[in-house]
């Protein structure tokens, strides 16, 4: 095991001297962590509204007012015809058009009902869905206002009404940053863990120093540990820095324990580094290794539930995520940070990741041959 000490010494020296590495490993993730959460806000707000008002009465204006003062919508276009209003949607000036027919107020009074038309740019389904729901909600509210104004309601409501109260647990401010930052941390640590480690080994292959190792009495396991351990420590360091930034800059403090995060992260890193190692045993050139690890990492990231919910995926895709270590970590990060989950809550994920770690590292060790 003494050989291991020398291997580690060499690795750490090399890493500490590589300026590009330093930049990539520490500065870039920090920048990402500072910019990404600012960008990653899915909240539906600032919906651009276009209005086509054929009625031009006090009531149509009141309606428009109510909508614009709700805070969800910004009035960006006021057109004379639906065609014009549609044009604004085409150019993405507006997301949604409200068309108030002429005789709106009159129909309401005379015929007891009136119809409004809403056209929504539905390319973004969630935005359209929520935008549509919001505006319908406001219209209904307005409807109630109008009724209250025009008729005297009996004190006792003649109709059965179900009142729906909703509570939002775990993220009462509905802040997307709280949701995204843990996930972004995971993504950064993962990229560093797997791609970087894989690349490092293939670089030694390309430079020929690996041959020197192969011809020496160093055992396979020692060599692999000698690569695993430094990167493991490095990734945990990045994680720590990330958590500090999350706390200082975003005020995100885990509801659960930091220890839980670290325990899980350690196991996770073993798995993800193992994957990187495995990939490196198959690649001959850095270009290959970079390509493969890049695409694998991308697939893992995009399909991890970080950006889009796993439940929205088709069944076969959800099955795939079960084989994606990243999705487990994202899940766990969110659970521990936002819901205060503890070790017992995540034991399924821990076992899964242990499984991955053993599988990847085992395969890597078997596959790595000192003699070809």
């Amino acid at each position, binding site marked *: 095991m003494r050989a291991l000490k020398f291997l580690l010494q060499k690795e750490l020296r090399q890493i500490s001297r590589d300026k590009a590495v330093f930049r990539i490993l520490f500065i870039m993730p920090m920048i990402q962590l500072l910019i990404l959460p600012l960008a990653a806000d899915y909240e539906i707000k600032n919906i651009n509204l276009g209005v086509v008002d054929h009625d031009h009465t006090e009531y149509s204006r009141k309606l428009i007012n109510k909508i614009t003062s709700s805070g969800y919508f910004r009035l960006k276009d006021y057109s004379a015809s639906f065609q014009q209003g549609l044009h604004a949607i085409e150019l993405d000036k507006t997301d949604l058009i409200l068309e108030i027919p002429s005789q709106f107020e009159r129909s309401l009074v005379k015929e007891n009902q009136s119809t409004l038309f809403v056209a929504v740019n539905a390319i973004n389904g969630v935005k359209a869905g929520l935008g549509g729901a919001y505006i319908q909600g406001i219209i209904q509210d307005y409807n109630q206002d109008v009724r209250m104004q025009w008729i005297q309601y009996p004190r006792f409501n003649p109709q059965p009404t179900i009142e729906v109260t909703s509570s939002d647990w775990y993220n009462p401010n509905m802040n*997307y940053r709280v949701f995204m930052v843990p996930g972004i941390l995971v993504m950064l640590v993962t990229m560093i863990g797997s791609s970087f480690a894989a690349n490092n080994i293939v670089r030694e292959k390309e430079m020929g120093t690996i041959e020197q190792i192969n011809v020496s009495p160093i055992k396979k396991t020692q060599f692999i540990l000698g690569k695993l351990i430094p990167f493991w420590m490095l990734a945990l360091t990045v994680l720590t820095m990330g958590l500090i930034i999350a706390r200082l800059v975003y005020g995100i403090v885990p509801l659960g324990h930091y220890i839980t995060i670290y325990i899980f992260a350690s196991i996770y890193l073993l798995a993800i580094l193992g994957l990187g190692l495995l990939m490196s045993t198959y690649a001959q050139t850095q*270009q*290959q290794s970079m390509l493969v690890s890049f695409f694998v990492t991308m697939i893992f990231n*995009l399909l991890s539930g970080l950006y*889009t919910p796993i439940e929205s995926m088709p069944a076969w*895709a959800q099955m795939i995520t079960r084989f994606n270590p990243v999705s487990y970590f994202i899940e766990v990060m969110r659970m521990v940070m936002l819901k205060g989950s503890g070790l017992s809550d995540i034991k399924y994920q821990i076992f899964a990741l242990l499984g991955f770690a053993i599988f990847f590292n085992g395969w890597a060790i078997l596959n790595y041959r000192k003699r070809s």
Partner: protein
Amino acid sequence: MKQFFIFVKKEWLHIWRDKRTLFILIWMPIVQILLYGFALTNEVKNSKIAIFDEAKDEASTTISQEISASRYFSLLKNVDSYKEIEATFRQGKIRLAVVFPRGFRNDLLHTNHAQIQLIADASDPNTANMLTNYATSIINDYQQSINQNEKLPYTIKTQVRMLYNPELKGAYNFVPGVMALVLMLVCAMMTSISIVREKEMGTMEVILVSPLKPFRIIIAKTIPYLLVSMLNIASILLLSVYALDVPIRGNFGLLIGESILFTITSLSLGILISNTAKTQQTAQFTSLMSLFLPTLLFSGFLFPIENMPIALQVISNIVPAKWYYIIVKDVMIKGLGFGAVWKETMILIVMTLALLGISIRNFKIRLA
């Protein structure tokens, strides 16, 4: 000129003979389009929920069934206490819990007023909102159904029409973005790696000593990738239309033209990166950090640009993918013509020229 073509041929052979890389270059985009096209969506469906029914009467059971039957929800389990709700949330198993108080139906019929509580896991606020909205509208439907005879006076009805994507399919929003992402990545990363590899191995110097102008060398390097990219554009479009059911409502030729333009922009970006990176590793990581993430973030398909702080919105303007994404949406999904996208097209053209200009200038200096 002839020298130029010889050079192009050499570059082509490099790619052609590295079968592994070629394989990846052609298949990866296909795999990605399929994967992301199908899997990346924020449509809400089959969200796991729990129901805490203290009433267990006809009304609560009916509403529970309606909710469970909806395609938005999938009942994971019935629970018996708030504590259980809490635990289930903490285990990450459900997104929404529906609570019916004791005597629900009685209250409803005799006092005309009953409550249902919806508890949403607001970790993901949008999903929480959507689920709450859907559940509420199902409950409202039930309320309507028992109110059939009464009609409220002065009713304002709202007809909502969903344009371009009536079924609210996630693919219509994401696929154009994935197209941008994949194209950008393949082009830019590959050129930068290839050029830097030659630098690292020292063959670059040999080439530069040859009578061919440096600028032409660079262009010659990118031409094979342009060809591969066209293949990619074709496969991406085919898959989008036939596998992902995303229509091409606008002019097909326009779409191809814009895609080629975007490819050239991405290649120019690749050249710029290759000028600044000294090793392959740096090239890869620079590509990753300055291409993948910005494209992901600022193209607009994953995160809404309008929500970002102004500073970031400004930055998003220099990300080529943002403009291409708009163009693809406009042409493919909205079916608009060149008149709608000429501005974005001009921007891409200007970007390309600027990138190439900077690269050429840098390249001459850089070789020290």
